[in-house]
């Protein structure tokens, strides 16, 4: 969806309402800190004026005390501001992740099982990091700069309105006009450069990951040559980017000096004309010179603003997206008595995946669905779990249309084992407890015995408490799948759905899994999807799916 920049910004700010208090505190401390810093120099000017016997806001002695006090206060406020900002940053990251994760929980699995799943996940994570920058390093600097500049314009305008006007123009030019100009100039270039440099990183990455093959085929030097060529190709882009960035900084700095000179000229002219006294001239010049800090902080925002808006847009898209299937609640609870797919059709984008597929799943049976990869058989399982919605035909659980079954009940009824078992960076026990958070150690062991993985786990250094990450690659596909199966057994459901559970396993591992399924399933109903005919042996009945049709 396309939103206006203002709309994106307003929505993004709305997201962090719980942090408003801290945000205001950070802004207040930052504002006061900057004022202290600027007024150290200005009070130096007052002290000088006092010594000269000219009218000063404050005596020299008092000014000295204030200057020292200001520097101490400034340091203290800086501490407070930084502490506040870090607090905000952490809370923000947690808050945005909380929102996004909540949204994805609604959208998943349909959203995350699409074609560009890997891409989506990486986009989300990097977008959130970018947004953290926006919140923590954009909102408060802007607020501080606006408030600070207003105060300074008032202070200088008090000397003479024209000088105040000049100061206002100066702050606006450095803090608004130049960043906008930079943003406009660097918008496309930056994105292209990041893309190209991402490609180069990808090339380096694959050169490392594929080192075995590169050595096998003696391609090391060719790879180095290509790496150099890509680096050179990127260099001209990078050079222009850096040149623009350098020019931006130089332009900002020059603008500051130019306005300093303009203020000097204006104040001196007014002074010569007798409109203001020397004290006015000196203070106006010192005040402007020492007060560009907050607006300079805005100058660099221009270069990241475009990508921040893009990231914000994508994140808001996720928050706004309505799920493919809404959870069903409020229906009467039912007991599982069997399931069936009745002339089910399903298309993903333009591709027809299933056409008029009918499968009957009587309670207690083992039903096999066999077919080549891409034949649509996995989609059938996902429709039975209501991850997607049937487009034509019906899926019925216990005779009731699946859309009229409470989602929570449906989940309770079903366990699902996928082709690859996802293991979290946690202990084996915790990984099993995904399926039943309050499972006792005994329950875990019973489930693992059924899945023939208990002995393996007991052989590990810390048994069930062994961290999966410590095992790394030494955990074979067979062991992973058996843990996945143990999970499914632990989740005491009526229906066990298995999507290619053994396709990455050797025949012995497959045999172990199939035997476990057949002999340990008790009265569970099993739906087993596989491309291997041999896997179908344990099934009471097998359906073949070809090009989305049952044959």
């Amino acid at each position, binding site marked *: 969806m396309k939103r206006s920049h203002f709309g994106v910004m307003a929505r993004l700010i709305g997201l962090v309402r719980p942090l408003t208090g801290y945000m205001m505190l950070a802004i207040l401390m930052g504002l006061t800190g900057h004022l202290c810093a600027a007024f150290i120099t200005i009070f130096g000017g007052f002290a000088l004026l006092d010594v000269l016997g000219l009218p000063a806001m404050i005596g020299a002695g008092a000014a000295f005390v204030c200057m*020292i006090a200001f520097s101490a206060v400034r340091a203290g406020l800086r501490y407070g501001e930084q502490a506040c900002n870090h607090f905000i940053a952490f809370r923000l990251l947690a808050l945005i992740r909380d929102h996004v994760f909540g949204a*994805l929980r609604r959208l998943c699995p349909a959203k*995350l099982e699409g074609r560009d799943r890997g891409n989506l996940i990486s986009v989300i994570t990097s977008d959130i990091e970018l947004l953290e920058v926006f919140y923590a390093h954009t909102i408060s600097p802007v607020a501080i700069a606006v408030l600070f500049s207003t105060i300074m314009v008032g202070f200088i305008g008090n000397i003479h309105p024209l000088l105040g006007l000049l100061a206002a123009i100066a702050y606006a030019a450095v803090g608004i006009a130049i960043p906008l100009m930079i943003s406009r100039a660097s918008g496309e270039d930056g994105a292209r450069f990041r893309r190209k440099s991402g490609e180069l990183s990808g090339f380096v990455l694959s050169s490392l990951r594929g080192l*075995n093959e590169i*050595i096998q085929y003696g391609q090391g030097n060719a790879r180095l040559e290509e790496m150099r060529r890509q680096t050179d190709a990127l260099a001209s882009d990078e050079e222009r980017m850096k040149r623009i960035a350098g020019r931006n900084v130089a332009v900002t700095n020059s603008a500051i000096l*130019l306005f300093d*000179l303009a203020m000097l000229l204006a104040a001196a002219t007014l002074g010569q004309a007798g409109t203001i006294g020397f004290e006015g*001239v000196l203070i106006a010049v010192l005040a402007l010179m020492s007060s560009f800090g907050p607006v300079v902080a805005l100058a660099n925002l221009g270069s990241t603003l475009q990508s921040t808006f893009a990231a914000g847009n994508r994140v808001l898209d996720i928050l706004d997206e309505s799920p493919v299937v809404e959870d069903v609640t409020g229906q009467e609870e039912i007991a599982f008595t069997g399931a069936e797919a009745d002339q089910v059709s399903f298309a993903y984008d333009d591709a027809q995946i299933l056409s008029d597929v009918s499968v009957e799943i009587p309670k207690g049976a083992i039903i096999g669905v066999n077919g080549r990869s891409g034949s649509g058989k996995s989609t059938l399982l996902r429709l039975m779990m209501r991850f997607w919605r049937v487009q034509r035909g019906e899926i019925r659980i216990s005779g009731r249309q699946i859309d009229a079954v409470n989602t929570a009940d449906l989940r309770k009824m079903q366990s699902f084992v996928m082709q690859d078992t996802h293991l979290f960076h946690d202990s084996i026990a915790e990984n099993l407890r995904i399926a039943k958070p309050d499972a006792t150690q005994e329950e875990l062991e019973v489930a693992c015995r059924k899945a023939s993985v208990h002995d393996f786990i007991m052989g590990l250094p810390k048994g069930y408490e062994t961290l999966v990450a410590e095992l790394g690659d030494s955990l074979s596909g067979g062991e992973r799948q058996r843990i996945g199966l143990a999970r499914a057994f632990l*989740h005491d459901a009526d229906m066990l759905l298995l999507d290619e559970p053994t396709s990455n396993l050797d025949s012995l591992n497959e045999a172990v899994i199939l035997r476990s399924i057949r002999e340990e399933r008790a009265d569970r109903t099993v739906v087993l999807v596989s491309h291997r005919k041999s896997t179908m042996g344990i099934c009471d009945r097998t359906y073949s799916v070809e090009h989305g049709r049952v044959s």
Partner: protein
Amino acid sequence: MINKRLIGAVPESKKYIAGNVAVQWVSLAANVCMMGSIAALLQKLCDGSAQTGSIVATITVGLLALAVRFVCGLAASRMGYLSSKAVKSTLREAIYRKLLRLGASYAEKVRTSEVVQVAVEGVDQLETYFGAYLPQFFYAMLAPMTLFCVLCFVNVPAAVVLLICVPMIPVAIAAVQTWAKKLLSKYWGQYTQLGDTFLENLQGLTTMKIYQTDGLRHERMNEESENFRRITMKVLTMQLNSITIMDLIAYGGAALGMIMAVTQFRAGNVGLGGALLIILLSADFFIPMRQLGSFFHIAMNGMAASDKIFHLLDLPEEMGGDRVPAGHDIAVHGLRFSYDGEREILHGVDMTFPAGSFTALVGESGCGKSTVAGILTGKNRGFGGTVTIGGVPIREIREDALMQTVTCIGHASCLFKGTVRDNLLMGRPDASDEDLWDALEKVKLAAFLKSENGLDTVLAEQAGNLSGGQRQRLALARALLHDSPVYIFDEATSNIDVESENDVMAQIHALAREKTVILISHRLANVTRVDHIYVLKDGGVAESGNQATLPRGGCYDKLWTAQQELEKYTREARA
């Protein structure tokens, strides 16, 4: 915070760093002139001696200084770019060359994930280290000294006060650094861990949803991040303290300098213009040092990255042999191997693979069959016993000669982003399109690719746009083009669909008619037609023979029976 070896690693950056410091210095000088002129004008304005001409003169000086500073700003950023430009390419190349020198057995010495981190992130960090931190480091020394010299002509006591305050900043930084070094690694460890939790919660979301534990995990994720925040804030407090100290010194020092200027003026030791100049320049004493302080994390990251890079570059390299195998008979005697030096995987294995023979290695997972493949392809080096190819010990064979002799295809071959042609030409760079199509025909990929974009079909990252079976068949085509006398297939079909498996197996059997082929497979049905079978068990050869001669009731027989039984089991189940 300066590592001589690091700077030495990228010698061409030195002159740019020097240039960067020089232009910044010129810019500072221009600023001093401008401020001097402004201070002088203000003095004239005060005593009423100012003419229109003096205002014009000051503005002119100011504009000149502005122009100089503009040019210097551009030049400084250019120098920063030039000094960092060399870093990336130089270091990445050095790392990659090192890996190539380490050769096939690199994975024994360094983890791939670590290399990736160093070569991508680490090098990026060093880029900023060279481009921003190093120049600032030197400039931060030079600038206060320069200003001190200038202000000495105006008023010595004020200049001395300002100069004394400056070194207190690096002292404060150093104090923090000793502390931070201890905690930073811990802090970053936890930080990245938190990022991982979010990422892996996204990756495992489907699993959680199936079992309805997504809500629980969500809560736990929020708790974890709150925990992380608490810990990190504690850790950060110290770092914030250093910022406070830095600010206190910078602003307090500037305030002291100004107070000195005013008191000296009151005492008549300095004129109004001089006092104003001190006031205008006192902040500049501290700006470079403060900026350096804000680059602190760049320096820390850079140092950490350079440590890792040098660790990698310093890894000892095996002295490779320089001999070429005289024939292709492979003999293995008393082979012992351990990955970690503790648990031995192979306990004295004897095997022979005569030239032109077709041999299978079978056994349950973990029996050591892949380790044998690793040793024969030079990936595992530190073995005991002897391994010879054509009578030449494998350790004495030049690596590229070994690679031209033995081609290994694993279960997850790596394909590269680019066209199908690019990937195939890796196997034989001078192959004609006809050769390539020939190889593709053999692995039954030709028809599919013709329906796509032919040899120009573009593969995505890690060939993600192909199915597992297609990837493996393409990898096989590449291997066939390599045309080496010996081929090792290490579970090459364990990850793919039945059709692909059959195609690949058929090709392996065809290949075995003219080459030496070693087939490692879990599917005994695949090895029934080979010349010789070695059955590995618990790191030793339990049996050897062929389908007909292997003993009844032995390991092979049991495995065979188990697999047959499964078929029987499934057949019976069906009946």
